[in-house]
């Protein structure tokens, strides 16, 4: 079993139009590296350099089993087989 990653419309140019792809890794950082290996260019769209290390871009939200990874350790958030990861752009509510 792998980790299902749901891709927003805006990033599907990197996945050949696929809405969901599968990946592997023990942390979100490893999962994103794995995605990059199969879908080159996607890493750059998800991450930016912040004070010399990688961080999620400001307008990118990532959820592991519906919980925002920024409250689960960010890129170090643990992931495992069977998890569902959702990537979404940040939008306004209210």
């Amino acid at each position, binding site marked *: 079993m792998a980790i299902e990653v749901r891709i927003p419309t805006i990033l599907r140019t990197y996945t050949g139009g696929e809405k969901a792809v599968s990946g592997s890794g023990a942390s979100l950082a490893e999962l994103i590296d794995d995605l990059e290996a199969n879908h080159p260019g996607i890493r750059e769209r998800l991450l930016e350099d912040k004070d010399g290390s990688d961080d999620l871009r*400001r*307008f990118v939200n990532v*959820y592991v089993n519906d919980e*925002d990874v920024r*409250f689960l350790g960010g890129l170090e958030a643990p992931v495992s087989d069977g998890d569902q990861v959702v990537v*979404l752009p940040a939008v306004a509510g209210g």
Partner: protein
Amino acid sequence: MTRYDDLLASVGNTPLVGLPTLSPSPDVRLWAKLEDRNPTGSIKDRPALKMIEMAEKEGRIRPGTTLLEPTSGNTGISLAMAAQLKGYRLVCVMPENTSEERRQLLRMWGAEIVSSPAAGGSNEAVRVAKEIAADHPDWVMMYQYGNDANALAHEEGTGPELLADLPTITHFVAGLGTTGTLMGVSRFFRREKPEVKIVAAEPRYGELVYGLRNLDEGFVPELYDASLIDSRFSVGPRDAVRRVRELLEAEGIFAGISTGAILHAALGQAARAVKAGEVADIAFVVCDGGWKYLSTGAYEGTVDEAEDRLEGQLWA
């Protein structure tokens, strides 16, 4: 006290009711803060009134001034009511994929509506409102996403009311839109009872709403401070509809769809507390009643049908 000099004075002081059926055990209890009991039927009466009062105090507006606001509905309706009573003109910028009831209510209270494109949701409403503001320097935008009076209304009202009614509170769960409710209530509890967990439930819409042309068009409200939140959940329309129906069936409360998303997150916290053997008093917000969303089809037929009908709509 239940007598007030006028309608505006009656904003806030809403009831907190227990949910004996949905609460998993006597040790882990859920409590609903009924914000639909505000004058226009939503929690937004609190920030709307506070934003107007602060602008008056600062001398930025006076009767006759045109107020401008990007809104998916409730904030606009609240502002329209207050503006009518206080003698302001109100122009609301609203995404076109919002329910017809919300538009009718806005017009009834005398607001003028400018529609913004459905794709991009409230992001587009914000962008269009900023353009209009630039063209009309004499108009005053309340700007709920960055106006501290929005959070202040909850810091001074919602938070203290919750602590007074539920001194044993352990969790507070609310929706994340402008972030005003969560920021304000959290500021209060971080000061008065810092062990209270602050949990955000964020609605997850259909793809159309996330139809940005590029990621740089994303939007994070200026009010948002992640350090004031302990966890944040994304809740899709299916869970929101399922929970909003459970709330009616089990407890008799008829709430709007976004409340279903909040209840879903609250039940998640309750399940964690039961598993950990902890005592918990979990308060969550009922943002509004279901009346304005009947036309969305969320309350009829199967959950599958309701989920399909909500695709592409701004249901929260």
